[in-house]
């Protein structure tokens, strides 16, 4: 038995490789990125030629993974929580089509929003789709569950959700590995119409999904990852999900937890186990990372007659991630004594790297927009979002991938002038292209600036689908050739870029300006390699 030191993300990847996965698809997004990066570095993945290239976005990734499952092979798609919004169409419907080869949708949530615009809880999506969810509590479970999840997926022909959170995704620990198993052979589904969701077929498949719910629940009851741990003090029972189980046990490293504990790492909720703990104990404390999903399930609207404690009644904070101290405080009201942070300590927000091309682009934008006042620049998700912070304070939106162009369109449709959209190259090919098409069709008066650093920067420099394709994509979408301009954003070109932006603002229609200069981080890495 070999032991590897792996991040939670990497343990998922290693588990998937060892469990005979034939392909992984995804789009980079913190904290999920390292899963695919690990497969890309893996020798075994190279030898087996496991598919491991990035996809244009989470939707294309989810669909490709489903296609691989259709063909009988084991597949995985990965994304951050908000990526599942992009993939949701495929995700929800794949619960109805079901799977052929085992398939896992791995979603890494980011409670406390370390690197995200919200902290939505993907378990709610899993419940919505009515598919089994796995929520590992540690790195070893990340590895072991991946095997188990593929098995359940094939046993019931159902996609599985694997849900991680930041602290597990990005924490390293020893993982014992198992023997690698062979990949599936190519094998089409027995029912060749299984994946055709025409209403008549979809209705039949949906009934199958509903009928399977009981079986999924039985799987949860018998899951090696769900545990009922007895305790003598029945004044309180604790339901601890995923990583919250660790925060609980952290407080009992030198003793035993006196209260009965239900550790939940596989959903749907194991009903009998829940009934056991709720009937035994006077009060239930629910520890879950993310939304109070289980707490709401237990309480419903009429639950005030039950004694359920958690995020809804203020026993735990309603938002943000948990930690051992918050859990202890929820159990016994004890507040930990701690040092204060001296006032000398100042905030240190992230910022553009020294020499970054985005700095030059925003210097020009800032100069031009000084004539119009703050409020005309709709932006997007990536390193260039940092222009919201000092010293630039130049952008007015960051909502979802691609929303810069479409929000700019809506604002222009309302009569706002001028309107500039700033979007990165990778974000543009992720979800910006369709919005640009909308603008071209209507000749909307906007200036789209595609800030091209030739990589997916914020997540650490993954390959960008936009590389060397931006001009031809824009031409193909119908932007006038004379209004597509590439420039090199360097100091010497500042005046020229300012003039260019002014000129394109004056043009009544869709203009695209593409400041192109390689990301300093990827450039540094390339030079180091040489």
């Amino acid at each position, binding site marked *: 038995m070999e032991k590897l*030191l792996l*991040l939670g993300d990497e343990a998922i990847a290693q588990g998937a490789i060892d469990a005979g996965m034939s392909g992984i698809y995804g789009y980079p997004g*913190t*904290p999920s*990125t*390292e899963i695919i990066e690990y497969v890309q570095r893996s020798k075994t993945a190279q030898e087996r030629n496991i598919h491991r290239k990035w996809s244009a976005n989470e939707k294309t990734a989810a669909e490709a993974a489903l296609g691989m499952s259709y063909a009988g092979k084991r597949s995985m798609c990965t994304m951050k929580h908000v990526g599942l919004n992009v993939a949701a169409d495929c995700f929800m419907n794949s619960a109805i089509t079901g799977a052929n080869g085992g398939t896992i949708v791995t979603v890494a949530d980011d409670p406390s929003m*370390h*690197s995200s615009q919200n902290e939505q809880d993907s378990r709610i999506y899993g419940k919505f789709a009515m598919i089994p969810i796995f929520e590992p509590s540690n790195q070893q479970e990340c590895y072991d569950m991946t095997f188990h999840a593929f098995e359940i997926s094939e046993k019931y022909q159902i996609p599985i959700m694997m849900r991680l959170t930041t*602290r*597990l995704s*990005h*924490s*390293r*620990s*020893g993982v014992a590995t198992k023997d690698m198993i062979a990949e599936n052979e190519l094998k089409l589904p027995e029912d060749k119409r299984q994946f055709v969701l025409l209403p008549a077929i979809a209705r039949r498949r949906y009934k199958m999904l509903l009928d399977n719910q009981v079986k999924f629940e039985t799987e949860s009851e018998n899951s090696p990852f769900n545990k009922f741990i007895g305790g003598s003090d029945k004044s309180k029972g604790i339901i601890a999900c995923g*990583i919250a*189980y*660790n*925060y609980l*046990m*952290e*407080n009992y*490293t030198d003793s035993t937890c006196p209260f009965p504990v239900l550790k939940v790492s596989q959903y749907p909720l194991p009903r009998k186990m829940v009934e056991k703990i709720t009937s035994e104990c006077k009060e239930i404390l629910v520890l879950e990372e993310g939304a109070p999903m289980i707490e709401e399930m237990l309480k419903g609207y009429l639950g005030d007659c039950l004694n359920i404690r958690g995020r809804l009644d203020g026993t735990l904070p309603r938002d943000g991630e948990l*930690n*051992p*101290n918050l859990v*202890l405080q929820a159990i016994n009201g004890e507040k*930990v*004594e*701690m*040092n*204060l*942070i*001296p006032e*000398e*300590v*100042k*905030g*240190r*927000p*992230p*910022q*553009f*790297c020294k020499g970054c091309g985005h700095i030059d682009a925003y210097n020009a934008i800032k100069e031009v927009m000084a004539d119009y006042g703050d409020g005309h620049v709709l932006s997007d998700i990536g*390193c260039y979002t*940092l222009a919201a912070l*000092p010293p630039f304070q130049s952008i007015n939106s960051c909502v979802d991938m691609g929303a810069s162009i479409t929000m700019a369109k809506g604002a222009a449709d309302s009569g706002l002038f001028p309107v500039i959209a700033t979007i990165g190259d990778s974000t543009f090919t992720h979800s910006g292209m369709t919005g640009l098409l909308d603008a071209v069709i209507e000749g909307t008066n906007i200036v789209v600036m595609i800030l091209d650093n030739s990589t997916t920067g*914020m*997540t*650490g420099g993954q390959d960008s689908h936009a590389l060397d394709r931006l001009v031809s994509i824009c031409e193909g979408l119908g932007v006038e050739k004379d209004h597509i301009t590439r420039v090199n954003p360097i100091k010497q070109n500042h005046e020229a870029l300012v003039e260019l932006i002014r000129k394109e603002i004056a043009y009544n229609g869709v203009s695209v300006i593409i400041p192109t200069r390689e990301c300093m981080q990827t450039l540094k890495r390339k030079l180091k390699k040489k």
Partner: protein
Amino acid sequence: MKKDIILCGVGGQGILSIATVIGYAAVDSGLYLKQAEVHGMSQRGGDVQSHFRISDKEIFSDLIPFGGADMILSVEPMESLRYLPYLSKNGWVITNDKPFNNIVNYPETEDVYKQIKKLDNHILINADDIAKEIGSPRSMNMVMIGAASSFLGIEFDKLIEGIKFIFGRKGEEMVNLNVKALEAGKAFAEKFNK
């Protein structure tokens, strides 16, 4: 044996190389390890920290509880103070003295030092200078490990093994320079405490 350490600094300063060397040494010594890292947005020049835990027993939480850290090991002085709520009563703050000034409102360096010196258990070390003196300015991180070495609960030789593991493929000279940095850090800390 259980050591909970907050490693901290500014994104890009390479605190993860510290984690890698100590981590290798810990695992090589047969200890359990958990190490929570910061990836993503903060890596772009923001404050970064890693919760680094080693123990001879199973470790549950990936995060160190407040008031529970045995050590704050920081490669930047102001950053060493940011994590004081994590420090235990008898915990140590071991920090590089060179400010990384990438914000407009960085405090007076002397005020930062004053706060550090207020702490009973601290080592304030000019790790950048020491690294330069031995001819390897990029080995500041190894100087820091050296300064912390006697508090880690790991044999010094195991740390050298860790350095060999990390820098081995870059050649013997690279290994030697980093070992030298490690030893210099250790020597400084020993003198500092007398």
